């Protein structure tokens, strides 16, 4: 899927990826790949401005975690507002998606034979 098409939905994608639990940036990318069957082709770095923006909006919280190997990673977690925002966006998206389906299916079935 084209990057430009995804950008408008990136915040929702990131929130959805974090709904399965706290994760650092690379794990978020992996989760998106896993759940979408690698359908999204987006520069990986783009995830970080989205994570920072969502944190600034209070939808995510984050903290530094140092692993046993000494690597420092920023781990992001959905906040309560983030969980609510994801539920709202999911509902809006389903409504939108159903409407588009209905439109496209209607167009197909309405074509003259």
């Amino acid at each position, binding site marked *: 899927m084209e990057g430009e098409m995804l*950008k408008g939905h990136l915040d929702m994608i990131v929130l959805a990826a974090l709904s399965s639990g706290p994760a*650092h*940036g*690379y794990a978020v*990318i992996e989760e998106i790949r896993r759940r979408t069957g690698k359908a999204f082709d987006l*520069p*990986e*770095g*783009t995830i*970080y*401005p989205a994570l*920072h*923006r969502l944190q*600034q*909006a209070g939808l995510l919280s984050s903290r530094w975690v140092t692993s046993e190997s000494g*690597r*420092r*990673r*920023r781990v992001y977690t959905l906040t309560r507002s983030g969980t609510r925002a994801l539920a709202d966006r999911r509902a809006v998206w389903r409504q939108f998606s159903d409407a588009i389906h209905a439109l496209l299916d209607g167009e197909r079935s309405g074509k003259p034979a």
Partner: protein
Amino acid sequence: MTAAYLKELADALAFDPALASRVVTEAREHLADAAAEYGIEDREEAERRAAARFGDPRELAAQFAAISLASQARRVGFGIAFAIVVVMAMMKARVAWYTLVQWTMAKDTQVAAGIVLTVNRYAFWIAVVLGIGALLHVGRRSAPARIHAEYRTHLRRAALLFSGATTALAVSVTGDLILTTLRVGMDISRDSVIPIASLSIEIGCIAIAIFMIASASHRTAQAARSFEV
């Protein structure tokens, strides 16, 4: 390869050193994971592919610029609100001190003091109103994906409200300075320590607010010059 990429990213984020440090740390770990995922012996090639997948550093910096400016505007807003609260606390502390030590104003200065006090009060409440307005203005919208002309206008309005609030507060503090001088005059004694100290704190608050606004304006101009679309 990774080091060169991270240097380029840090340079592109130079408008916000704290953000640059955090993003570079996150990117370093990400690139290490991505390069390891390739599982190839040619480390240089793995790092090159990982950097290519991460994206153009300038493009990423452009996205971070909007976030940085939004967060900075909030910081300045809270800074000015804090300055207003501190100035008010200092005024109240001084008045309480004058009552405690029964320090009254000389009769020949009371008319002038009355005029200054009126200006002082109006200026302070104008600062409060503009400060609240500035906080509401910066809080009503989140950071956009990129800096664009409309967002620049939003930031310009925020800067105007910040400047207005700080100017009004500075007028109020100048009023405090005149009133304190009229009351204390050349009588520097133990009793005058509280008025002088509280006034110094007020002047310090104004200086910090002016510094915050100036550095925010500088950073906004720098980021907009580089990344505005």
